[in-house]
């Protein structure tokens, strides 16, 4: 890997499209590559028969926002038989400045036996859930899915106020009262 470290700002011309491929933080316009963010210019050579990739390592990361396929951490705010409404707080490990709204529709809770899913037996308000964005959704909410082993509730509080620990992929136990509550749990990674 060869690299030339150099600080650049948006709009700065970095090279010709015949010399480089556009990487992250850059864009091409009329045969030239320009920086689109503030950061440090990097040139990565992948193989000899391909053009080196020109990218800009961001200095300040943009405030996190959900994108399709991103893994998000969110808090359940409301449930009804059709979906659970959540506030998306963290996207791909980066906290959002302001929470985005999302919903987990009943058909997206788990991958199998979708007809048997009851939202109330999967999520309760206050639960912290790990989910994946499947669509930009409608005007208001992103659509999320928990249909994978590692997705689901990662932290919850029981009716009695104790914290819950998962005992199976669909049950959690209160640390105070040992009462068992149903949830769609995430398998720890």
């Amino acid at each position: 890997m060869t690299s030339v470290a150099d600080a650049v700002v948006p709009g700065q011309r970095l090279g010709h499209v015949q010399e480089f491929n556009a990487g992250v933080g850059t864009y091409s316009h009329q045969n030239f590559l320009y920086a689109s963010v503030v950061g440090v210019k990097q040139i990565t050579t992948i193989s000899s028969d391909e053009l080196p990739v020109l990218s800009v390592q961001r200095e300040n990361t943009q405030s996190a926002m959900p994108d399709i396929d991103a893994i998000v951490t969110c808090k359940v705010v409301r449930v009804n038989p059709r979906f659970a409404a959540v506030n998306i707080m963290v996207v791909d490990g980066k906290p959002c400045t302001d929470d985005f709204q999302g919903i987990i529709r009943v058909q997206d809770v788990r991958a199998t036996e979708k007809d048997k899913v009851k939202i109330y037996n999967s999520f309760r308000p206050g639960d912290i859930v790990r989910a994946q964005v499947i669509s930009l959704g409608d005007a208001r909410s992103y659509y999320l899915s928990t249909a994978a082993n590692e997705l689901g509730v990662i932290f919850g509080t029981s009716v009695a106020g104790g914290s819950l620990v998962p005992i199976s992929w669909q049950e959690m136990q209160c640390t105070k009262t040992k009462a068992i509550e149903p949830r769609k749990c995430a398998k720890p990674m």
Partner: protein
Amino acid sequence: MSISFHSPAVRTTNDGVVRRRAVGHDMDLDDGLEGAAESAMKDPTLHVVTPGELITSDTAFMRGHGTYIEQEKVLSSVAGVVDRVNKLISVRPLHTRYTGEIGDVVVGRITEVAQKRWKVDLNARLDGILMLSSVNLPGGVQRRKQESDELQMRTFFMEGDLVVAEVQNFFADGAYSIHTRSLKYGKLRNGSFISVSPGLVQRSKSHFHSLSCGVDVILGLNGYIWVSAHVSQDLEEIDTEQVYSNKNKEDITPADRESIARIANCIRALAQNFVFINATIISFAYEASLQYPLKDMHKKEVMRDIAVEATTAVDNMRG
């Protein structure tokens, strides 16, 4: 650069001719309205009423659309023209939104993408609904709707897209359910959009016309009209993938554009002079318009002349 300033004018007698023609056509078409035709003939100055105006105090009459009864008198509830069929009195409003029937061909614009459905502006009181299950999905007529389709509705139709469709049903609230489950329906391309009063588009056997000047016209019964460059109508050959394409065809020539603009302006001229619009009269209007340069066609006088000439030509044809 060109611009022209004019003073406003009162309606001339010419307008009168055109307007009566329009009414006359209406009568020709619908035998059931003979009574009204008669009354219109008897009284050539139409009976125009405003909301709250007394139509008759004769208790023998029955109340129809656009009227109400107070103290046993029939009053108008809209501004419009009085229609009488035997004992039934109704008022045809001057301005109206589209009220349709099942089977109508309509042109609409997508206004919202919702869950499993699109909302479509149809020039009616309520937005129409196009269900995801009422469209042909790419991949063949037989392809079934999948869950993934619900998440990518915008790849088929997005906000702003124009569609031609057929009224399929009514919802309880009066909104129209429309469908595009035929290859002649779907997304509109290669042309421009005109809106006229829905009452002016005549119901006929076909609403898809290929005019001799190489221009296709879709006359939506809701008053939305699409004028476009001609594309071959061989439905068998249409690739279903292309149904949802946003790309216009590459070979629209300047001559095509001029013809499209000319036809569009003819339709505007007819609509502005309250002449019913159908394929025949559009063709005559096109003939009549050829004596004017294209850029003069937005002038009021030219528009009127075209409308008058076209109506006269239709009359002559019918003898």
